């Protein structure tokens, strides 16, 4: 027993070192290796991986399908912009308050999950996403004006709009990219702490079987709402980052179908692992950039790619890319190793 525990500790330690190393690389080395447009894309990858994380918490951990996560992101973005123009509170507090308000909205949405599950919950949350898109298209994002909407009638394409402010320690693009990555890491850490402890185990038992969870004394309503609260909090924080990242958020950039694409890419990345959310962020933001800006291919082709990828995942690899890819690589490695060995044997025999 003691040895087993020591084993976990060593594995955990190795993991922690690797993750810290990767984080240091992403924060300090990447900005000097790539251009400004790449850095902007990586910032978006980071933000959308938080959004994918929220989908993964709800579906991968508890088994609740929410197709409204990008809608919540846009709400977080709106609140972030509104608060940034209206107040002078320091940016970290802005993130926190935005997260908490979005959490409130998310928990209200989550109340439906107490009675509904599966397809019905998916439909309701998708309707929520649709409604959000419509409301946003009417109100649009704040641009520093007055009133509840925080908008002055300058016209959508006005260039006089002052951008949403960034933290005073990270006003430049590179500095803010680093800021985003660090906040993203903190959100993943928050999720990890939940998943690895009591709520994570309660969620897993709900996902396995609600009657069994009930018999085990799990307060199912509480833990379902808790999951929605956590997912919405991190999404709200991500929305606030997004507002400051783009400076002038526009309603047209948030579509209802984005929530569906996020769900698809999250499934492709892998919903049972937190790493899957990062893969999902890459699929969601980096691939469109590569297609459109780098290769001049219409990025709508990506939908076909995502469709094929999703089918592949649902049919053969329920754990997604993060689960399947290492297995496939190991298989390939063994194949190469065996063929090399048989080749050399044949060589030495002749």
């Amino acid at each position, binding site marked *: *027993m003691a040895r*087993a525990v020591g084993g976990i500790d060593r594995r955990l330690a190795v993991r922690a070192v690797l993750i810290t190393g990767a984080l240091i690389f992403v924060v300090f080395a990447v900005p000097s290796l790539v251009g400004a447009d790449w850095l902007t894309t990586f910032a978006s990858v980071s933000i959308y991986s938080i959004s994918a994380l929220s989908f993964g918490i709800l579906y991968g951990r508890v088994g609740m399908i929410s197709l409204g996560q990008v809608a919540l992101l846009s709400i977080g973005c709106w609140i972030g912009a509104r608060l940034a123009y209206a107040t002078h509170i320091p940016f970290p507090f802005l993130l926190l308050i935005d997260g908490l308000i979005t959490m409130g909205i998310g928990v209200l949405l989550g109340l439906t999950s107490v009675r509904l599950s599966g397809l019905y919950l998916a439909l309701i949350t998708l309707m929520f996403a649709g409604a959000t898109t419509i409301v946003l298209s009417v109100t649009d994002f704040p641009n520093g004006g007055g009133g509840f909407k925080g908008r002055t009638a300058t016209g959508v394409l006005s260039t006089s709009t002052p951008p949403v402010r960034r933290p005073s320690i990270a006003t430049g693009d590179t500095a803010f990219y680093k800021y985003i990555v660090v906040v993203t890491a903190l959100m993943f850490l928050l999720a990890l702490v939940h998943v690895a402890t009591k709520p994570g*185990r309660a969620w897993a038992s709900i*996902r*396995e*079987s609600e*009657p069994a969870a009930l*018999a085990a*004394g799990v307060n199912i309503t509480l833990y379902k709402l808790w999951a929605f609260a956590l997912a919405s909090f991190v999404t709200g924080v991500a929305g606030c980052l997004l507002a400051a990242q783009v400076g002038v958020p526009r309603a047209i950039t948030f579509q209802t179908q984005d929530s569906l694409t996020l769900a698809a890419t999250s499934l492709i990345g892998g919903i*049972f692992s937190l790493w899957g959310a990062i893969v999902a962020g890459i699929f969601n933001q980096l691939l469109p950039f590569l297609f459109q800006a780098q290769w001049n291919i219409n990025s709508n082709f990506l939908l076909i790619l995502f469709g094929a990828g999703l089918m592949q995942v649902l049919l053969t690899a329920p754990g997604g890319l993060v689960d399947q890819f290492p297995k496939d690589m190991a298989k390939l490695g063994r194949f190469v190793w065996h063929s090399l060995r048989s080749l050399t044997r044949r060589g030495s025999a002749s």
Partner: protein
Amino acid sequence: MIEVKGLTVRFAGVTPIDDMSVVFPGGTCGLIGPNGAGKTTFFNVLSGFVKPAAGSISAFGEDLLRMADFRRARWGLRRTFQTEMAIEKLSVYDNVAMIHEHSGAKRGTRRHDVATAIEFVGLETPSTTKVGRLGARERRLVELARAVVGKPRVVLLDEPAAGLPEEETSHLSAVIRKIPGEFGALVILVDHDMSLVSACCETTAVVDFGKLVASGPTAEILRNEQVMKAYLGTETDI
């Protein structure tokens, strides 16, 4: 001791439990009967999944039916299901610890209690293994460890040996027999495997059509003519 008086459950036009009165005195008690006799429905009433139309259940002097379903685990009620429900995505340790967390037992003793429960059922796989990678026998043992962790008072076992080959059932029955002595819990065992029931249970109750047919010491019950007729079918029936 669990005392059931005049328990009746109705679903639409069906009455799976019909004015049933039975006493489980303590130790390991068997509950047998043909398919559809109302055994699992009775467990569901105890768990709080099904609200009875009439009757009372007193467990160690407390009115079980007035307790909210998710509070019964904290009170000390544990159960396993016909289809095994250990959590695939969690490790063996987390599976058992999860029950402990909601049982009201002290946090400081968790590691020790969980290790004791795993050791008690005789599970040899490392406790860090994910349950999804275990075989049927090990999963049943994980379920049993979940049922005995954190001061259980009543342990309901619904066909714990379903789908296991005979040689593995004997280990299971040895473990089940030890539960009352080790944890001071009353065990109610539902199973169709008569060798398991007679190996584990001092007393046995037989139900059919939602009514108690007979109850008493297991050896006597299994010789009872009425029971043979109701449950096993007599030779003249064939």
